[in-house]
């Protein structure tokens, strides 16, 4: 399953998709960035409500396949621009974090 396929199946919005063909393996949920940085595994989907600049760096370091911003969280254009630059995929979900995770679980 690629990020692009997951996004279509779950009806997430794509905010930035510089690497839509990236394969997904697993899912991690967390909002404390330092915690996520050490624990999210490579290629997983990372679900969070944090939408500041630092999430791009954490996603890049942990090498996750994409960030899903849940609970209808929005994100600044400046951050999307950086995501494109750093090859970080960002999807948006209006569902609550738990329901977003369920949708990911049922589709990957």
């Amino acid at each position, binding site marked *: 399953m690629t990020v692009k396929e997951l996004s279509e199946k779950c009806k997430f919005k794509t905010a930035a998709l510089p690497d839509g063909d990236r394969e997904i393996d697993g899912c991690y949920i967390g909002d*404390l*960035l330092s*915690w996520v940085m050490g624990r999210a595994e490579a290629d997983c989907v990372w679900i969070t409500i944090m939408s500041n*600049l*630092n999430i791009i*760096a*954490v996603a*890049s370091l942990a090498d996750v396949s994409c960030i899903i911003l849940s609970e209808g969280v929005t994100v600044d254009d400046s951050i999307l621009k950086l995501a494109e630059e750093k090859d970080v995929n960002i999807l948006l979900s209006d569902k609550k974090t738990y329901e977003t995770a369920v949708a990911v679980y049922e589709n990957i």
Partner: protein
Amino acid sequence: MKELSLNILDIAMNSVKAKADTVWVTLTETADTFTMSIADNGCGMKKDFLKTVTDPFSTTRTTRKVGMGIPFLKLAAEQTGGSFEIESKHESEYPDSHGTVTTAVFNKDSIDFTPLGDIVSTVTTLIQGSPDIHWVFKHTLPEGEISLDTDELKSVLGDVPLDNTEVILWIKGYLEEAYSETV
């Protein structure tokens, strides 16, 4: 980070890397604010580099392209409605007064304020890891003050090194006692 003491450890390690002789770790608390200041007399940063340190994609490390210590501290402070500031003088421009001061102010009333956590372990870890640095630790609370100056310890200890296990255990015990008497 789950505890502010881990942020302090992280920022103080920057001072160690900057080859500081002296590092001042100053914590000042009022009823509703918590201010941490890490000051050193290390090599300092040039203006161009200083501008980039809060950017998560800059670092002094060569193994990875991002360094997160300062961005995380800035975020932690701003999440509480507080503030963050870093000032630095590079040794090339200020041969006699170089160094860096990192200051973060937190609002303790904010639900996103992270507790200080195990500050005693942080201070002892720093001293044990870099016993040749002059560490000046001071924590001022509304109830009183806790302080430790490793130069004062050295004058009493003479030739016994600061990273001697017994000395480290004594420092730990001293700080724990000071906290239990003050807080």
